[in-house]
């Protein structure tokens, strides 16, 4: 498991690096609080006018907000920096350094950069989600809790796959900034359960830009709205996505090595 060791090493370096800038922790914490506060104000505005949003009650939406923050936190902590780094490397031509190392290139490229203080989003998110869970009339059972955690991880894996596919696109077509802009914009749509959206948008947010999958599905499990069948089906989808992503990565790196002679 050399790959895991490499990942932990990178993580340790990042942590030591960022611990030097302790002020950044407070700045990041304030930012997380501002984000969540804004979300809470919006929920307050909504529930001032209506007892539920498309069937979702206030505590349930608190859970959604919390999960959204958690996903965003992990995204900013591990995925986004890695993706940005890969894009930069491809642009500058320094991606060769990744390919010539004796560690699997996909793993290496994915674990190189971490922004430790973004985890404040995760902490704040957990707090908000817990608040929501506590306020629920029927707190989640152990299986529902487990299902939530599983779907959270699955959703994050799906986002990771999307990120990697976009980045691999850079091997063919270097100007992927456009696509990045597009997907960054759509990310915000994950803040509400996908049921609110028209069907076509719901499908897009679950299977194409899986932020909907990453946020709505764990929330559904935690609030007792997720069926076994659906969970299994989505896990199957994510597994297939992982396989496809790996294939695309392999194709992409082969193309890159061929192109940059």
């Amino acid at each position, binding site marked *: 498991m050399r790959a895991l060791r490499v990942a932990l090493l990178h993580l340790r370096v990042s942590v030591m690096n960022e611990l030097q800038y302790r002020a950044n922790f407070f700045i990041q914490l304030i*930012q997380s609080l501002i984000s969540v506060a804004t979300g809470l104000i919006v929920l307050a505005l909504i529930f001032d*006018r209506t007892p539920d949003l498309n069937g979702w009650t206030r505590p349930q939406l608190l859970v959604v907000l919390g999960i959204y923050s958690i996903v965003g936190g992990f995204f900013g902590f591990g995925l986004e920096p890695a993706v940005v780094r890969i894009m930069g490397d491809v642009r500058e031509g320094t991606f060769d350094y990744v390919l010539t190392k004796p560690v699997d290139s996909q793993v290496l490229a994915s674990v190189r950069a971490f922004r430790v203080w973004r985890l404040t989003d995760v902490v704040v998110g957990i707090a908000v989600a817990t608040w929501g869970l506590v306020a629920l009339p029927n707190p989640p059972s152990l299986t529902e809790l487990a299902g939530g955690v599983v779907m959270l991880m699955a959703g994050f894996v799906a986002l990771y796959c999307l990120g990697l596919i976009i980045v691999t696109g850079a091997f063919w077509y270097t100007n992927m900034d456009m696509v990045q802009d597009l997907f960054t*914009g759509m990310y915000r749509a994950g803040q509400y359960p996908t049921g609110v959206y028209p069907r076509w948008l719901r499908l897009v947010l679950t299977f194409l830009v899986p932020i909907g999958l990453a946020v709505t599905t764990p929330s559904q499990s935690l609030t007792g709205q997720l069926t076994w069948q659906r969970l299994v089906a989505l896990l199957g989808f994510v597994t297939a996505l992982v396989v496809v992503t790996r294939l695309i990565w392999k194709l992409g790196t082969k193309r890159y090595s061929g192109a940059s002679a």
Partner: protein
Amino acid sequence: MTYLRLYATLGRQAISTNFQYRLNNFMFLVGMIAEPVVYLVVWSSIAERQGGALDGYTPGMFAAYYIVWTLVRAMNITFTPFGWEERIRDGTLSGHLLRPIHPVHYDIGWFSGWKVVTIVMWLPIAVALALVFEPTLDPTWQQCVTFFVAIWGAFLLRTMLLWVLGLITFWTTRVTAMFEAYFAAELLLSGRLVPLDLMPGWARETARWLPFESSFGFPITALVGPISGRGLAEGLARQFAWIAVSALFLAWAWRHAVKRYSAVNG
């Protein structure tokens, strides 16, 4: 009027340059519509739940509001306050300081040209959104004229406001939290999140004393309504007043920023 040639040249070159990146611009706009679509869907569903209208806003009016929102938002995007750190670091600022014009002209002129390309790229998106969400839109010609003036006024106002905000970078680089707090306040009190009519009373009161509404909510409401002729005139007057105030503030803040820079960095 010697600034005329400068603005004309800047505008022209901004259009040429950004036309080369029209696809990038288009994709960015497409990504941007996620935000208003989310708001639109959420508020429309609440309206339907309340029996068809929320404080007088039907789903059709929400659709109109948020589709026009996309143009106003695009016109609002300007030189980011986060950009000053790089400007200082990579020598661009020194380059500006060596030239005999105030650098704000450069930003205003350049972004104005960019906006022309933005508007052109926005039109097909607006049509697509209109087909999907079926907005109720029926403005008078006075509203249309006011709208056209107001979106450029909004651009000018927000450019100056964010310019001044960015100048904080001259005193400290720990600016992220401050900027985010500004943007959060702006989100809630400008009409970006939801029409200000729908915000609670205290929020509406606070918004009257701040420039955010003039740069966002007012242009939208000018076109989408409901608004009286008097409301249009008042809104424009307020916008111009804020522009004047920010211009004065900018001149003052810039003088101090340059002093600070020239004492330390050069």
